């Protein structure tokens, strides 16, 4: 008897996507919101979430018409086989680069904050092994796992926010418009780079059986991620006020260190370190699997697993490109805009072309 194909619903996909986007609250990537939005960073997070949702919605809408298809199928419809191969290569390169930077930066922060004697090679390799194992499995397991972890992740983040709330003053959120409305809007593309992971649900959309409402749930990913970012940024701004707060490498980890519930309830950041590393492993695993799936489709491979290990090796190589901790964070910021343009607006354009090509055909 043939093994039934594993599948999941749009809602599970949205929960998984939300986790993938929101994981970055633990990472220095958050600094880009604070830098661009200053005291209005929370507003910046919300506006960029809306911008990203508007860009991914048309992609989801076209995907509703292609049962069992994902964003790579749209590329093939719009740009042909050659375009699909080119897209897979570009996607693989970007994912390997960003994944490598996340890997290095997580390992650097773990070394700086918790494990000062552990070598970088050990930290990065261990995390990458976990990610490769996750990517070795199937999409349905990953999506369901992500949905399950989202609840614990939200509890961990909410605990940090509740525990550190008392350290701040609401007046630190003024001036309300931060750098001014003009600069705030001009900085949106940079901030939107935090939502690059919103591409992952588009890559995993092939496992969604019932396509109705797919676009709506895919749009929910950046919006819910934006709400989480805005809540975290609001608390970070009142706890580590602008401009000094911009210099903290991993602000949420520093916030976790402040949680103090009396003499017998302190030093709880170990719990959040656990959530941080666990969700990072999932994010990197999802990135590896997404890129591997794209390769498998473009090169007509039977299984995505063939591409997992080469991509993991590439990721590890990129992880050791930056010289130090500061260069790692800079690499993340400097590549953010290009990554965003290629991974969010370009698929929207591709979806538009695919829509025109599909017009008139039955779904």
């Amino acid at each position, binding site marked *: 008897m043939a093994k039934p194909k594993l599948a999941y619903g749009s809602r599970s996909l949205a929960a998984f996507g939300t986790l993938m986007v929101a994981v970055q609250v633990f990472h220095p990537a958050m600094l880009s919101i604070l830098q661009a939005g*200053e*005291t209005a960073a929370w507003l910046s997070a919300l506006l960029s979430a809306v911008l990203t949702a508007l860009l991914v919605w048309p992609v989801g809408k076209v995907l509703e018409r292609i049962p069992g298809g994902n964003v790579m199928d749209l590329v093939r419809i719009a740009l042909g086989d050659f375009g699909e191969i080119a897209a897979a290569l570009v996607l693989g390169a970007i994912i390997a680069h960003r994944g490598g930077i996340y890997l290095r930066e997580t390992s650097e922060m*773990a070394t*700086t*904050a*918790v*494990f*000062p*004697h*552990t*070598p970088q090679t*050990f*930290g990065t390799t*261990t*995390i990458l*092994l*976990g990610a490769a*194992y*996750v990517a070795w*499995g*199937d999409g349905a*397991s*990953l999506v*369901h*796992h992500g949905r*399950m972890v989202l609840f614990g992740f939200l509890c961990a983040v909410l605990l940090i926010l509740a525990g550190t709330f008392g*350290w701040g*003053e609401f*007046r*630190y959120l*003024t*001036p*309300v*418009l*931060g*750098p*001014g409305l003009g600069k705030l809007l001009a900085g949106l593309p940079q901030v939107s780079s935090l939502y690059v992971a919103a591409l992952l649900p588009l890559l995993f959309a092939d496992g969604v059986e019932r396509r109705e409402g797919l676009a709506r749930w895919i749009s929910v990913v950046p919006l819910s991620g934006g709400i989480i970012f805005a809540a975290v940024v609001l608390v970070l701004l009142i706890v*580590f*006020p*602008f*401009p*000094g707060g911009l210099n903290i490498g991993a602000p949420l980890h*520093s916030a976790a*260190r*402040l949680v*103090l519930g009396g*003499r017998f309830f*302190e*030093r709880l950041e170990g719990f959040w370190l*656990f959530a941080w*590393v*666990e969700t990072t*492993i*999932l994010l990197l*695993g999802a990135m590896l699997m997404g890129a591997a799936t794209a390769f498998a489709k473009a090169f007509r491979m039977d299984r995505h697993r063939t591409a997992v290990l080469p991509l993991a090796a590439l990721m590890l190589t990129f992880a050791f490109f930056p010289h130090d901790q500061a260069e790692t964070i800079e690499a993340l910021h400097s590549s953010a805009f290009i990554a965003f343009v290629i991974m969010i607006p370009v698929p929207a354009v591709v979806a538009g072309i695919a829509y025109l090509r599909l017009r008139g055909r039955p779904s």
Partner: protein
Amino acid sequence: MKVRAVLVTLALTFLLTGCWDRVEIEDQIFPIAIAVDKGVVHKYRMAVRIPMVGTIRTGMLGGERSKTTSEIVTVEAESVVQGIFTANATATRRFTLRHLRGIAVGEDLAREGLGDLYMELSRNGEVRDTAAFFVVRGSAVEFLKLARYPGEINPGKLAEGLLLVEKHLHMSPPIRLQHMLNRSGLLGVDPFAPVFGINRGVTGESQPPGTTASAIAGDLYRLDGNPAELAGTGIFRDTRLVGYLTVDETQALLALRGEMGKAYMTFPDPFRPGDKIQIRFHQENKPKVRPSFNGQGPQVTIRLLFEGEVLSGTENFWDPAVRRRLEEAARHHMEQQVQSVLAKTIKWGADPVGFGLRFRSRFATWDDWSRYHWRTQVPKLKVTVTSEMRIRRFGLTLAPLQQKQEK
């Protein structure tokens, strides 16, 4: 697959500790407090208080083991970390600052500026920003050597105990390192810290001061006991100490910030000239602050509302006129303290109340706010304070016990 993946990823996170960062608790010593002064030869002179773990009594049946529960090591170094290493040369275990509870800084160093010290402490992954922070009138190292708290059997709880006293009596503000770090780098509010002092009357080096008026640590009228005392507030301008506030002024500062809990105030008895009367009071509401701009500079109107209860006094409080007169005297005294705080801090160019944060919200953008140059506006600040004191309770006895009258 799902369960396996969960288990494997969770197990990997545990593996991250590796073999490199495995630390046995008995291989470490946890300094609980450090005192930092300006060095004579090197940048800092530091004293490190180390708990003698084996001698600490714990629990109800702990029993008497030793009178010495902690030791002091004094060193000079170019940085706090180097100081800790130097102190570590005297021990057989590794010093770690993971349980550092209190940081005391000497007056000389604080007046020069604590920017370098803050940077070092905030970079250090072992130091918690939740550590209590104090400024010491005179030498912090001398303070740490002389301070003894016989009631506290566990030195690890010492800083927390001091914070409890601060919160209970409001003789000094409860401040942690995080408050100092935040407020030092912020435009619109300046840091302030509780003050420790060494009472020379207690050490026998001089006579006790001749007054019982509101004072600062080091000047309290005491004859014996712990030579170290905690009272008053050190006011900073950015990272530099600029002056001190007395106990009553501390309460006024906390009232202006809306952070005053139940506090105690002793003021001239309006019914018996030369005598003092004591009340316990708190803020009935948060202060109502109205910032505005006029031609000369920023202007603030503040309304404070207090509620109190009488703790001493010999009057008959059944009489409404007596009650009103007492309220008026208490209000007058508190307003005097508030005016004194404002006069001192504005003279020092410091803004511990955080008036700047009230004005910040009047600007749309950060650039507009920066261009206002708040620092230069502080000396031009005009503050109008009105207050009201409502004495609600008069103790278990509302009038003095009647004396027999002979006919």
